[in-house]
Protein backbone atom coordinates (compact mmCIF):
# COMPACT_ATOMS: atom_id res chain seq x y z
CA UNK A 1 0.00 0.00 0.00
CA UNK A 2 1.36 3.41 -1.01
CA UNK A 3 0.77 6.70 0.74
CA UNK A 4 -1.76 9.01 -0.88
CA UNK A 5 -0.40 12.04 -2.73
CA UNK A 6 -3.54 14.10 -2.98
CA UNK A 7 -6.50 15.00 -0.80
CA UNK A 8 -9.69 16.23 -2.40
CA UNK A 9 -11.28 18.29 0.38
CA UNK A 10 -14.91 18.80 -0.55
CA UNK A 11 -15.69 21.60 1.85
CA UNK A 12 -19.36 21.99 0.99
CA UNK A 13 -21.81 20.84 -1.65
CA UNK A 14 -23.61 24.19 -1.52
CA UNK A 15 -23.16 25.93 -4.85
CA UNK A 16 -24.52 29.03 -6.59
CA UNK A 17 -24.52 27.26 -9.97
CA UNK A 18 -27.02 24.71 -11.19
CA UNK A 19 -25.08 22.81 -13.84
CA UNK A 20 -26.85 19.85 -15.39
CA UNK A 21 -23.52 17.99 -15.54
CA UNK A 22 -22.91 18.21 -11.76
CA UNK A 23 -21.34 14.94 -10.62
CA UNK A 24 -21.99 15.48 -6.91
CA UNK A 25 -24.34 13.02 -5.20
CA UNK A 26 -28.11 13.27 -5.51
CA UNK A 27 -28.74 13.18 -1.75
CA UNK A 28 -27.31 16.59 -0.87
CA UNK A 29 -29.41 16.78 2.30
CA UNK A 30 -27.14 14.09 3.79
CA UNK A 31 -24.19 16.47 3.57
CA UNK A 32 -25.59 19.52 5.31
CA UNK A 33 -23.88 18.75 8.59
CA UNK A 34 -20.50 20.01 7.43
CA UNK A 35 -17.19 19.51 9.19
CA UNK A 36 -16.20 22.61 11.12
CA UNK A 37 -12.91 24.48 10.92
CA UNK A 38 -11.35 22.52 13.75
CA UNK A 39 -12.29 19.20 12.17
CA UNK A 40 -10.84 20.22 8.81
CA UNK A 41 -7.68 21.33 10.61
CA UNK A 42 -7.33 17.82 12.03
CA UNK A 43 -8.09 16.20 8.65
CA UNK A 44 -5.38 18.29 6.97
CA UNK A 45 -2.82 17.46 9.65
CA UNK A 46 -3.62 13.75 9.45
CA UNK A 47 -3.47 13.87 5.67
CA UNK A 48 -0.07 15.52 5.79
CA UNK A 49 1.20 12.89 8.25
CA UNK A 50 -0.09 10.22 5.89
CA UNK A 51 2.03 11.59 3.04
CA UNK A 52 -0.43 13.84 1.24
CA UNK A 53 1.36 16.64 -0.62
CA UNK A 54 -1.47 18.33 -2.44
CA UNK A 55 -4.80 19.56 -1.21
CA UNK A 56 -7.56 20.35 -3.67
CA UNK A 57 -10.17 22.55 -2.01
CA UNK A 58 -13.38 21.88 -3.82
CA UNK A 59 -17.12 21.39 -3.46
CA UNK A 60 -19.73 22.63 -4.33
CA UNK A 61 -18.36 26.10 -4.07
CA UNK A 62 -15.58 26.26 -1.47
CA UNK A 63 -15.82 30.07 -1.34
CA UNK A 64 -19.15 29.62 0.46
CA UNK A 65 -17.16 28.44 3.48
CA UNK A 66 -16.54 31.50 5.64
CA UNK A 67 -13.45 29.79 7.06
CA UNK A 68 -11.82 29.10 3.69
CA UNK A 69 -8.93 31.49 4.32
CA UNK A 70 -8.19 29.78 7.65
CA UNK A 71 -8.31 26.35 6.04
CA UNK A 72 -5.91 27.46 3.29
CA UNK A 73 -3.55 28.96 5.88
CA UNK A 74 -3.56 25.67 7.84
CA UNK A 75 -2.85 23.63 4.74
CA UNK A 76 -0.08 26.00 3.77
CA UNK A 77 1.47 25.82 7.25
CA UNK A 78 1.59 22.05 6.85
CA UNK A 79 3.52 22.49 3.60
CA UNK A 80 0.67 21.23 1.43
CA UNK A 81 0.31 22.53 -2.12
CA UNK A 82 -3.11 24.12 -2.19
CA UNK A 83 -5.41 24.28 -5.17
CA UNK A 84 -8.74 26.11 -5.13
CA UNK A 85 -11.34 24.58 -7.45
CA UNK A 86 -14.00 27.23 -7.85
CA UNK A 87 -16.82 28.70 -9.90
CA UNK A 88 -15.24 32.06 -8.96
CA UNK A 89 -18.58 33.38 -7.72
CA UNK A 90 -17.60 35.00 -4.46
CA UNK A 91 -13.97 35.53 -5.45
CA UNK A 92 -13.89 39.26 -4.82
CA UNK A 93 -10.57 41.06 -4.99
CA UNK A 94 -10.38 41.33 -1.21
CA UNK A 95 -11.14 37.63 -0.70
CA UNK A 96 -8.55 36.79 -3.36
CA UNK A 97 -5.96 38.94 -1.62
CA UNK A 98 -6.66 37.21 1.70
CA UNK A 99 -6.25 33.81 0.04
CA UNK A 100 -3.01 34.93 -1.56
CA UNK A 101 -1.68 36.02 1.83
CA UNK A 102 -2.80 32.71 3.33
CA UNK A 103 -0.54 30.94 0.82
CA UNK A 104 -2.96 29.53 -1.76
CA UNK A 105 -0.82 28.10 -4.57
CA UNK A 106 -3.12 27.72 -7.54
CA UNK A 107 -6.62 28.60 -8.71
CA UNK A 108 -8.82 26.64 -11.07
CA UNK A 109 -11.88 28.47 -12.36
CA UNK A 110 -14.69 26.78 -14.24
CA UNK A 111 -16.52 28.36 -17.11
CA UNK A 112 -19.38 26.81 -19.01
CA UNK A 113 -18.86 28.19 -22.52
CA UNK A 114 -17.02 30.97 -24.35
CA UNK A 115 -19.82 33.52 -24.53
CA UNK A 116 -22.07 34.97 -21.84
CA UNK A 117 -25.48 33.71 -22.91
CA UNK A 118 -24.42 30.10 -23.44
CA UNK A 119 -22.28 29.97 -20.32
CA UNK A 120 -24.99 31.49 -18.12
CA UNK A 121 -27.61 29.16 -19.55
CA UNK A 122 -25.56 26.07 -18.70
CA UNK A 123 -24.56 27.43 -15.26
CA UNK A 124 -28.19 28.27 -14.57
CA UNK A 125 -27.28 31.73 -13.30
CA UNK A 126 -25.66 34.92 -14.62
CA UNK A 127 -22.00 34.24 -13.95
CA UNK A 128 -19.89 34.53 -17.14
CA UNK A 129 -18.85 38.13 -16.63
CA UNK A 130 -17.91 37.64 -12.99
CA UNK A 131 -15.89 34.57 -13.87
CA UNK A 132 -13.89 36.39 -16.52
CA UNK A 133 -13.25 39.26 -14.11
CA UNK A 134 -12.10 36.83 -11.42
CA UNK A 135 -9.71 35.22 -13.90
CA UNK A 136 -8.16 38.66 -14.37
CA UNK A 137 -7.77 39.10 -10.61
CA UNK A 138 -6.11 35.68 -10.31
CA UNK A 139 -3.55 36.59 -12.95
CA UNK A 140 -3.01 40.04 -11.50
CA UNK A 141 -2.20 38.59 -8.09
CA UNK A 142 0.41 36.35 -9.71
CA UNK A 143 -1.25 32.96 -9.35
CA UNK A 144 -1.06 30.28 -11.97
CA UNK A 145 -4.54 29.97 -13.49
CA UNK A 146 -6.27 26.89 -14.81
CA UNK A 147 -9.50 27.37 -16.72
CA UNK A 148 -11.71 24.31 -16.51
CA UNK A 149 -14.53 23.56 -18.90
CA UNK A 150 -16.71 20.49 -18.67
CA UNK A 151 -17.58 19.48 -22.23
CA UNK A 152 -20.88 18.04 -23.37
CA UNK A 153 -23.34 18.08 -26.22
CA UNK A 154 -24.37 21.69 -25.55
CA UNK A 155 -20.93 23.33 -25.57
CA UNK A 156 -18.40 21.03 -27.24
CA UNK A 157 -18.93 22.78 -30.57
CA UNK A 158 -17.60 25.94 -28.90
CA UNK A 159 -14.23 24.47 -27.99
CA UNK A 160 -12.28 26.79 -30.33
CA UNK A 161 -13.89 29.80 -28.67
CA UNK A 162 -13.22 28.35 -25.22
CA UNK A 163 -9.53 28.00 -26.07
CA UNK A 164 -9.45 31.58 -27.35
CA UNK A 165 -11.06 32.79 -24.15
CA UNK A 166 -8.54 30.88 -22.03
CA UNK A 167 -5.72 32.36 -24.08
CA UNK A 168 -7.11 35.88 -23.82
CA UNK A 169 -7.33 35.75 -20.01
CA UNK A 170 -3.76 34.45 -19.84
CA UNK A 171 -4.54 30.98 -18.48
CA UNK A 172 -1.50 28.83 -17.82
CA UNK A 173 -3.53 25.66 -18.27
CA UNK A 174 -6.87 24.84 -19.69
CA UNK A 175 -8.62 21.64 -18.80
CA UNK A 176 -11.24 20.43 -21.25
CA UNK A 177 -12.97 17.55 -19.56
CA UNK A 178 -15.69 15.54 -21.18
CA UNK A 179 -18.58 15.02 -18.78
CA UNK A 180 -18.44 12.00 -16.51
CA UNK A 181 -21.81 10.56 -15.77
CA UNK A 182 -22.15 10.41 -12.00
CA UNK A 183 -24.56 11.99 -9.54
CA UNK A 184 -26.80 14.56 -11.15
CA UNK A 185 -25.06 14.23 -14.54
CA UNK A 186 -26.21 10.61 -14.78
CA UNK A 187 -29.80 11.80 -14.99
CA UNK A 188 -28.88 14.04 -17.88
CA UNK A 189 -26.77 11.59 -19.81
CA UNK A 190 -28.95 11.47 -22.91
CA UNK A 191 -28.97 15.27 -23.08
CA UNK A 192 -25.23 15.62 -22.43
CA UNK A 193 -23.50 12.83 -24.35
CA UNK A 194 -22.11 14.36 -27.57
CA UNK A 195 -22.21 12.71 -30.96
CA UNK A 196 -19.14 11.10 -32.50
CA UNK A 197 -18.99 13.87 -35.11
CA UNK A 198 -18.98 16.53 -32.38
CA UNK A 199 -16.13 14.80 -30.56
CA UNK A 200 -14.07 14.29 -33.67
CA UNK A 201 -14.40 17.94 -34.69
CA UNK A 202 -13.45 19.10 -31.18
CA UNK A 203 -10.42 16.83 -31.06
CA UNK A 204 -9.06 18.29 -34.31
CA UNK A 205 -9.39 21.79 -32.83
CA UNK A 206 -7.67 20.71 -29.61
CA UNK A 207 -4.75 19.07 -31.42
CA UNK A 208 -4.17 22.18 -33.54
CA UNK A 209 -4.33 24.47 -30.50
CA UNK A 210 -1.88 22.27 -28.60
CA UNK A 211 0.60 22.59 -31.42
CA UNK A 212 0.11 26.34 -31.74
CA UNK A 213 0.23 27.11 -28.01
CA UNK A 214 3.02 24.74 -27.04
CA UNK A 215 5.09 26.20 -24.17
CA UNK A 216 2.51 28.95 -23.62
CA UNK A 217 -0.61 27.20 -22.37
CA UNK A 218 -0.97 23.56 -21.37
CA UNK A 219 -4.08 21.98 -22.78
CA UNK A 220 -5.39 18.97 -20.90
CA UNK A 221 -8.08 17.10 -22.74
CA UNK A 222 -10.02 14.44 -20.84
CA UNK A 223 -11.53 12.09 -23.39
CA UNK A 224 -15.04 10.72 -23.33
CA UNK A 225 -14.62 7.15 -22.11
CA UNK A 226 -17.92 6.19 -23.72
CA UNK A 227 -16.16 6.58 -27.06
CA UNK A 228 -12.86 4.96 -26.08
CA UNK A 229 -11.73 1.37 -26.57
CA UNK A 230 -10.40 1.15 -23.05
CA UNK A 231 -11.76 2.61 -19.81
CA UNK A 232 -10.25 5.51 -17.92
CA UNK A 233 -7.71 4.43 -15.29
CA UNK A 234 -9.51 4.54 -11.95
CA UNK A 235 -7.71 7.35 -10.06
CA UNK A 236 -4.39 5.62 -10.80
CA UNK A 237 -5.80 2.59 -8.98
CA UNK A 238 -8.50 2.40 -6.30
CA UNK A 239 -7.25 3.96 -3.05
CA UNK A 240 -3.76 4.15 -4.47
CA UNK A 241 -2.87 7.85 -4.81
CA UNK A 242 -5.84 9.99 -3.83
CA UNK A 243 -8.49 10.25 -1.21
CA UNK A 244 -11.60 12.38 -0.87
CA UNK A 245 -13.19 13.78 2.27
CA UNK A 246 -16.80 14.83 1.68
CA UNK A 247 -18.44 17.85 3.39
CA UNK A 248 -19.85 15.70 6.22
CA UNK A 249 -16.55 13.92 6.88
CA UNK A 250 -17.00 10.69 4.93
CA UNK A 251 -13.80 9.36 3.39
CA UNK A 252 -13.82 7.89 -0.10
CA UNK A 253 -11.20 6.85 -2.63
CA UNK A 254 -12.83 9.17 -5.17
CA UNK A 255 -15.72 11.63 -5.15
CA UNK A 256 -17.95 9.40 -7.27
CA UNK A 257 -17.77 6.46 -4.85
CA UNK A 258 -20.53 7.67 -2.54
CA UNK A 259 -23.33 5.39 -3.87
CA UNK A 260 -21.26 2.18 -3.69
CA UNK A 261 -22.61 -0.35 -1.18
CA UNK A 262 -19.59 -0.23 1.14
CA UNK A 263 -19.57 0.56 4.86
CA UNK A 264 -19.10 4.25 5.58
CA UNK A 265 -15.80 5.55 6.89
CA UNK A 266 -15.81 8.94 8.57
CA UNK A 267 -13.17 11.26 9.99
CA UNK A 268 -15.65 11.93 12.78
CA UNK A 269 -15.08 8.45 14.18
CA UNK A 270 -11.71 7.30 12.92
CA UNK A 271 -8.29 8.59 11.93
CA UNK A 272 -7.45 9.10 8.29
CA UNK A 273 -4.51 6.75 8.70
CA UNK A 274 -6.67 3.85 9.90
CA UNK A 275 -9.29 4.54 7.27
CA UNK A 276 -6.70 4.61 4.47
CA UNK A 277 -5.07 1.38 5.63
CA UNK A 278 -7.96 -0.77 6.80
CA UNK A 279 -11.43 0.45 6.00
CA UNK A 280 -13.42 -1.65 3.51
CA UNK A 281 -14.14 1.42 1.40
CA UNK A 282 -10.40 1.65 0.72
CA UNK A 283 -9.44 -2.01 0.63
CA UNK A 284 -12.38 -3.34 -1.43
CA UNK A 285 -10.77 -2.73 -4.83
CA UNK A 286 -7.20 -1.90 -3.95
CA UNK A 287 -4.66 -3.73 -6.12
CA UNK A 288 -5.70 -6.41 -8.61
CA UNK A 289 -6.93 -9.34 -6.47
CA UNK A 290 -10.57 -8.27 -6.72
CA UNK A 291 -10.58 -8.38 -10.50
CA UNK A 292 -12.87 -10.61 -12.51
CA UNK A 293 -12.13 -11.73 -16.05
CA UNK A 294 -11.41 -10.26 -18.55
CA UNK A 295 -9.43 -7.83 -16.32
CA UNK A 296 -7.63 -10.49 -14.27
CA UNK A 297 -5.63 -11.84 -17.20
CA UNK A 298 -5.52 -8.57 -19.16
CA UNK A 299 -2.11 -7.10 -19.95
CA UNK A 300 -3.60 -3.67 -19.19
CA UNK A 301 -4.76 -4.57 -15.68
CA UNK A 302 -2.21 -2.22 -14.15
CA UNK A 303 -2.68 0.41 -16.84
CA UNK A 304 -6.36 1.13 -16.35
CA UNK A 305 -7.06 -0.95 -13.23
CA UNK A 306 -10.28 -2.41 -14.59
CA UNK A 307 -11.59 1.09 -15.24
CA UNK A 308 -13.96 2.95 -12.99
CA UNK A 309 -15.60 0.99 -10.13
CA UNK A 310 -18.24 3.65 -9.76
CA UNK A 311 -19.17 3.47 -13.42
CA UNK A 312 -19.30 -0.33 -13.25
CA UNK A 313 -21.70 -0.01 -10.33
CA UNK A 314 -23.72 2.71 -12.01
CA UNK A 315 -24.22 0.72 -15.20
CA UNK A 316 -24.41 -2.88 -13.96
CA UNK A 317 -25.27 -2.65 -10.25
CA UNK A 318 -22.05 -4.53 -9.42
CA UNK A 319 -18.95 -2.46 -8.58
CA UNK A 320 -16.67 -5.49 -9.06
CA UNK A 321 -17.39 -5.92 -12.76
CA UNK A 322 -15.18 -4.68 -15.59
CA UNK A 323 -16.01 -1.09 -16.48
CA UNK A 324 -18.52 -1.36 -19.35
CA UNK A 325 -16.65 1.44 -21.14
CA UNK A 326 -14.00 -1.17 -22.00
CA UNK A 327 -14.68 -2.86 -25.34
CA UNK A 328 -13.66 -6.17 -23.71
CA UNK A 329 -16.31 -5.90 -20.99
CA UNK A 330 -19.18 -8.41 -21.20
CA UNK A 331 -21.46 -5.43 -20.45
CA UNK A 332 -20.04 -3.16 -23.15
CA UNK A 333 -23.39 -3.25 -24.93
CA UNK A 334 -24.72 -0.87 -22.23
CA UNK A 335 -22.30 1.80 -23.39
CA UNK A 336 -22.75 1.00 -27.06
CA UNK A 337 -26.49 1.60 -26.76
CA UNK A 338 -26.00 5.01 -25.11
CA UNK A 339 -23.55 5.97 -27.85
CA UNK A 340 -25.98 4.83 -30.54
CA UNK A 341 -28.70 6.97 -29.02
CA UNK A 342 -26.35 9.96 -28.99
CA UNK A 343 -25.71 9.46 -32.70
CA UNK A 344 -29.22 8.87 -33.91
CA UNK A 345 -31.71 11.50 -34.90
CA UNK A 346 -30.99 15.11 -34.22
CA UNK A 347 -27.53 16.39 -33.37
CA UNK A 348 -26.20 19.26 -31.30
CA UNK A 349 -27.55 21.03 -28.28
CA UNK A 350 -31.23 20.46 -28.81
CA UNK A 351 -31.83 17.87 -26.09
CA UNK A 352 -33.12 19.53 -22.93
CA UNK A 353 -31.04 19.18 -19.76
CA UNK A 354 -32.37 19.44 -16.22
CA UNK A 355 -30.39 21.99 -14.27
CA UNK A 356 -29.45 21.04 -10.74
CA UNK A 357 -31.61 22.85 -8.22
CA UNK A 358 -29.29 24.30 -5.60
CA UNK A 359 -30.28 26.18 -2.54
CA UNK A 360 -27.53 28.31 -1.12
CA UNK A 361 -27.82 28.67 2.60
Amino acid at each position, binding site marked *: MDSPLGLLAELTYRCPLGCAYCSNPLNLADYQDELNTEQWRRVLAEASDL*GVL*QCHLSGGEPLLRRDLVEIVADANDLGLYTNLVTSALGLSRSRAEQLRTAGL*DHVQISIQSDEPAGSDRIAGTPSFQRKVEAMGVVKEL*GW*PLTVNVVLHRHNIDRVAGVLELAESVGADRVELANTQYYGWAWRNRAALLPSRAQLETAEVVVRAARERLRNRMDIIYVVSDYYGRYPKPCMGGWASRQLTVTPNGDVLPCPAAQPLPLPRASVRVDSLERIWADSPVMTAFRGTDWMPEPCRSCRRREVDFGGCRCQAFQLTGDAARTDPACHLSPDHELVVRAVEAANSGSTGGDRPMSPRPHRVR
Partner: protein
Amino acid sequence: MTPRLRRGVRLTYDRTRQTHVLLFPEGVLVTNPTAAAVLELCDGERTVPDIVAALGTRYAGVREADVDDVLARLVDRQVVEWT
Protein backbone atom coordinates in the same frame (compact mmCIF):
# COMPACT_ATOMS: atom_id res chain seq x y z
CA MET B 1 19.54 33.00 -20.05
CA THR B 2 18.74 31.87 -16.54
CA PRO B 3 16.52 28.95 -15.53
CA ARG B 4 13.82 29.26 -12.91
CA LEU B 5 10.86 27.25 -11.65
CA ARG B 6 7.71 28.01 -13.58
CA ARG B 7 4.94 29.88 -11.86
CA GLY B 8 3.06 27.64 -9.45
CA VAL B 9 5.88 25.08 -9.21
CA ARG B 10 7.33 24.44 -5.77
CA LEU B 11 10.32 22.30 -4.75
CA THR B 12 9.90 20.65 -1.37
CA TYR B 13 11.19 17.76 0.69
CA ASP B 14 8.70 14.94 1.20
CA ARG B 15 9.37 13.48 4.64
CA THR B 16 7.06 10.50 4.09
CA ARG B 17 8.86 9.31 0.96
CA GLN B 18 12.23 10.84 1.93
CA THR B 19 12.88 12.50 -1.38
CA HIS B 20 12.66 15.91 -2.98
CA VAL B 21 9.51 16.47 -5.02
CA LEU B 22 8.23 19.17 -7.32
CA LEU B 23 4.66 20.20 -6.69
CA PHE B 24 2.61 21.97 -9.34
CA PRO B 25 -1.04 22.34 -10.29
CA GLU B 26 -2.53 18.84 -10.32
CA GLY B 27 0.81 17.06 -10.24
CA VAL B 28 3.79 15.77 -8.29
CA LEU B 29 7.18 14.93 -9.77
CA VAL B 30 9.68 12.95 -7.74
CA THR B 31 13.16 14.31 -8.42
CA ASN B 32 16.43 12.45 -8.05
CA PRO B 33 19.10 14.05 -5.81
CA THR B 34 20.99 15.48 -8.81
CA ALA B 35 17.91 17.21 -10.20
CA ALA B 36 17.00 18.50 -6.73
CA ALA B 37 20.49 19.99 -6.30
CA VAL B 38 20.15 21.78 -9.65
CA LEU B 39 16.59 22.91 -8.92
CA GLU B 40 17.59 24.47 -5.63
CA LEU B 41 19.83 26.80 -7.61
CA CYS B 42 17.28 27.71 -10.29
CA ASP B 43 16.39 31.13 -8.92
CA GLY B 44 16.06 33.05 -12.18
CA GLU B 45 19.32 34.87 -11.45
CA ARG B 46 22.02 32.25 -11.71
CA THR B 47 23.17 31.28 -15.20
CA VAL B 48 24.14 27.69 -16.03
CA PRO B 49 27.87 28.42 -15.42
CA ASP B 50 26.89 29.96 -12.04
CA ILE B 51 24.96 26.79 -11.19
CA VAL B 52 27.86 24.58 -12.25
CA ALA B 53 30.23 26.65 -10.09
CA ALA B 54 27.89 26.50 -7.07
CA LEU B 55 27.48 22.74 -7.42
CA GLY B 56 31.28 22.42 -7.79
CA THR B 57 31.75 23.70 -4.25
CA ARG B 58 29.65 20.76 -2.96
CA TYR B 59 30.31 17.93 -5.39
CA ALA B 60 33.33 16.72 -7.36
CA GLY B 61 33.31 16.39 -11.15
CA VAL B 62 30.27 18.55 -11.99
CA ARG B 63 30.11 19.07 -15.77
CA GLU B 64 28.15 21.76 -17.56
CA ALA B 65 26.85 19.22 -20.06
CA ASP B 66 25.25 17.21 -17.24
CA VAL B 67 23.54 20.28 -15.80
CA ASP B 68 22.31 21.14 -19.31
CA ASP B 69 20.83 17.65 -19.60
CA VAL B 70 19.04 17.88 -16.26
CA LEU B 71 17.63 21.30 -17.16
CA ALA B 72 16.51 20.15 -20.60
CA ARG B 73 14.53 17.33 -19.01
CA LEU B 74 12.94 19.69 -16.48
CA VAL B 75 12.02 22.18 -19.23
CA ASP B 76 10.52 19.29 -21.16
CA ARG B 77 8.37 18.40 -18.16
CA GLN B 78 7.27 22.05 -18.08
CA VAL B 79 8.45 22.70 -14.54
CA VAL B 80 11.41 24.92 -15.42
CA GLU B 81 11.54 27.83 -17.85
CA TRP B 82 14.26 30.11 -19.22
CA THR B 83 14.11 33.81 -18.57
